[in-house]
């Protein structure tokens, strides 16, 4: 599974992308976030504030209950500010 981090969330994790193999019980976006938080204290800190982290799975917006599978491209980022 590939995880991408954007904007200031990237400085919280110290990496823009990583290849990971989370344990088999990590099957949802929410569970993956908990797992990422256990690896990156900065991510855990950002997760403490509600609504600050957005997620996408295979380049579509995703909610905490949505599934993640091996081979997926998952991205975490703050609310968007383009335009």
């Amino acid at each position, binding site marked *: 599974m590939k995880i*991408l981090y*954007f*904007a*200031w969330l990237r400085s919280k994790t110290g990496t823009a992308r990583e290849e990971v193999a989370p344990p088999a019980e990590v099957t949802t976006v929410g569970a993956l976030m908990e797992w990422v938080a256990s690896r990156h204290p900065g991510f855990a800190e950002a997760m403490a504030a509600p609504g600050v982290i957005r997620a*996408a799975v295979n*380049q*579509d917006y995703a909610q905490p209950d949505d599934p993640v599978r091996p081979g997926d491209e998952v*991205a975490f*980022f*703050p*609310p*968007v*500010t*383009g*335009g």
Partner: protein
Amino acid sequence: MIRVQESPFDVGAEIATLSAGRTDIGAVASFVGLVRDHAGEQATLAMTLEHYPGMTEKKLAEIEAEAQARWPLQASLIVHRYGRMLPGEPIVLVATASQHRAAALEACAFLIDWLKTEAPFWKLEETGSAPRWVEARETDERAAARWRR
């Protein structure tokens, strides 16, 4: 058509291209977003736009398709830049063409409102002190909400 690019664009040329060679278009509406030289009291020296290659293009294409589905558009264009820009430079252009003005104007407003809350871009502002990531605004969320069905 959608385009995500680093280089600047010529607003006039882009809009002219939209209706070039066509005589069936009655109305073209456009919105251009520029880098402002201040944010509140603080001066902005430059702005860097980050994007998510792949997802950004995908979302812009979906946003454009949504506008095409809701209004009778004859043509539409979204050009959005990424990278570092100086005050006065264009960041984004949205243009719509239709037979009549109402569809063109409404679709144009929809596109920019929707894009601001849906398209994965993030602004990093350079000020006199440390660069800071621009925070999402509640007003943008409200502007997009009026188009929600």
